[in-house]
Every structure is written in C-alpha cells, then in structure tokens.
C-alpha cells in the first residue's frame, strides 16, 4: 500500500503545474514507491529544457517535499551531483 496520500500529492502537482504552465510546461508523476519516493518527468515545453535542474531545485523538489509523507523527489533526466544540487537549491526559510 502506498504510504503517500496520492490525492494530496496530485493536488500539489497540479498547483506546481499551474506555475509551470507559464512556460508551457508541467511535471507528470510516473512512480510513487511504498517508501514515499516520488519520481516525476518534465513534460510539455519543459521536456527538453536545459533549465530543468534549476526548476527542479527551485520549484518541484521544494513543493513536493513539503508534503510530510513524501520521502524523496526525483525526476527522469535530471540527475546532477550533490555538490551542484546544494549550490542551486532554494534557500531554506
């Protein structure tokens, strides 16, 4: 059984997509593990965009990670080093 409240996750994804629609893009959830690991894919005009790592760290990961039952967030085709991820992550408030 999934540990993630899927309707709540889907709602959060829809809220993120409202912002990403400004560029004609969106994310799709492609997998949610029992342990709460969420995997997404960039789609629409974001599919081939070189800014994916920045959008991931400034918008997608903070937005989805804010849900208590989400353990990790990853995206297909966006895999960068931890050093860079820390450098570009949204500052903690």
């Amino acid at each position, binding site marked *: 059984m999934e540990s993630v409240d899927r309707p709540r996750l889907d709602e959060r994804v829809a809220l993120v997509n409202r912002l990403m629609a*400004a*560029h004609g893009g969106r994310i799709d959830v492609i997998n949610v593990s029992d342990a709460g690991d969420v995997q997404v894919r960039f789609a629409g*005009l974001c599919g081939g965009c070189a800014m994916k790592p920045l959008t991931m760290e*400034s918008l997608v990961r903070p937005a989805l990670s804010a849900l208590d039952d989400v353990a990790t967030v990853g995206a297909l085709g966006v895999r960068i080093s931890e050093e860079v991820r820390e450098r570009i992550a949204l500052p903690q408030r």
Partner: protein
Amino acid sequence: MIDDAFVIDGAVHVVDWSFDHLSSRSRLHDPETRLAELELYDRLLGGIFDFTELEHGVPDAMTGSEEANYELLFKQSPTDMAIVGSLAFGPSDEYDDPDYSLKINHRFAAAYPDRCIFGGGIQPWGQDLDYALDKIEWQVRELGAQSMKFYPFHWHADDVEYAYPLYEKCRSLGVKILQFHYCQPGDTTHNVEMQRPIGIQAPARDFPEMTFVMHHPMPLYFEETLSIASRFPNIYLVCSPLFQLSLVKPRLTQELVGQLLQWVGPDRLVYGSEGAMGGNTTRYVQAVMDFEISEDLRKGYGYPEVTREDKEKILALNIARVFGIDVDAKREALAAQPSGA
C-alpha cells in the same frame, strides 16, 4: 541595477499569482486548496506575501498579481526593465481562455509601462494562416506588442508559403523584431530536428531590415547557432538559460560563452532570466556579473576575457538598442521615482 550596471531582462514570462479568472473546473475555488497554493508561494518566493493574517482568504499583497510580479522582478532583484511576453498555450485546467498567458503578460506590461515592453507570441501550427495573421494583428493593435515571438515546432521559419506571410504581416504593422524559440525541443510530441535553427537564415537574409532574435543558444545545435549568428548581423541571441546554466555546469558555460564572444562578439548577446516562475532572479543577474572564463580555457582555446563592458552590453545595452530604449534617460527617470517604486 547591479554594481551600477543597468539590467534589462530579455525573457520574462510573468505568472498569475492571483485567483482571478479561474475556470469552473479549477480546484483553486476550494479554500483548502487555495491555502495550500498560498503556502507554496510563501515557500518559493521568500515571504513576498504576508501570511500572518491569512484565514482561507487572500492577503492584500496577493489581490494584485501585477504588484506581486513587480515586487519579484524589480524590487527583490536588481532588474530595471523587462521584455515581457508569452504564448497562447490554449485552455488549461485552471483557465478557459486560450489566450490567458498572453493576457497576463500584457496586463503586467501595461501596468508598468516605464519598466516593461510587451512582446507577443504565436505558435500557428494546427491553425490556418488567417488565424495566425489575425492573432498577430490583435496582439500588435490591441495589446501593443513591439515584437513577435515564434515557436517553430512542426513548421519551418523559412517556409515561404506559411511563415513569410507572418513576417510580412509584422512588418506591415510596424513590428520589426522577430523572436524565435530554438534548440530546446519539448517532450515526446516534438522531434529534435524541429528545433534546428537553420530555418532562420533565409528570412534573416530576405528581411534584412528586420531584427531576428534567437532564444536559447544551447549545446543542442550550438555549432550551427554559432555559425548562423556570426554571419548574419541582424541576428541577436538571448542567452537564456545559458548564464543560469553556469550555476549547474560552469565549465561548459565558459566554453559556450567563450565561443559566442569569440565568433559572434559581445554586441548581439542578451541576458534573459525566463522569470518569474522560479521566484527571485537575482542569482541569474549575479551569474552574469560574476562570469569569468578560466585562464586555461583562454590560453588553450583563445577565448577572450569577459570584460565589464561585455557584461554591460549583455545585461542591457544590446537589447536596449534593439528596442530603442535610451538607457541613460531610463536610468535617470527610474532614479527619480519615489523610493520603493
């Protein structure tokens, strides 16, 4: 301004942070969902909205999306002016109006004409030519678009039958700045070759009095972009997200910018943030100001040192020339505004 350098953001697409004009399908009519959205904004935008009095309502700062975008772009970041535009992306879950993205950007530009220039956008594929021509005329005559951006997915910019009438229409309406999205295909609905920039050469040659602005000089088709921009003096490059990429791939960005400076020169390169979806654009402006090419690359590949003058051109002076902005006069006018404006 950053370090006394004027900043004109050549690629801004504002976001509607408000809850106006929503379709009946939108889940944002639900107060709980609306609260979740506002909390998301608070997290992303560094406290731009005051949540202390929030009770399933909309705080004052949120009632005007224009004010929120202004705060983000011009107060939280060192940006002085912006070329603002979008595309008619079609109806969505949140909005029935297929032109809504265009209208949001127009509204913002119209609200702050001293800082914004509105650029239109068209993706005509799937519609007949009359549709595209009518859309161009509407954006220029009714919305005051000073440029037109094209997204050549599924069609080619050098198609004499399909594309040239669009450029002629722009020219007849007094719009001489044509912008193009290249080198970044979308998802699986696009073939990569759709974004090959070779199609811009013929129109740049056949419409020499017009300025062609290519967006996204990226690794994909970079060599071709370099060759094209270096040979056609009426082609400019909006280097988005190139300087943003310096935060992720600094070494690669040095090589790409080095080649652009080497072959195209500093006079036709333009900074663009693609803001404001991800919030504060300060670090992107700073990335330009801090940008350097390593000594080993300069020695090994002949890339020039990036000068202060180069950065001032990239940050503002080049795009100012394209759009006829008097930067000195603007600098004075904005400085004379009340503090906080």
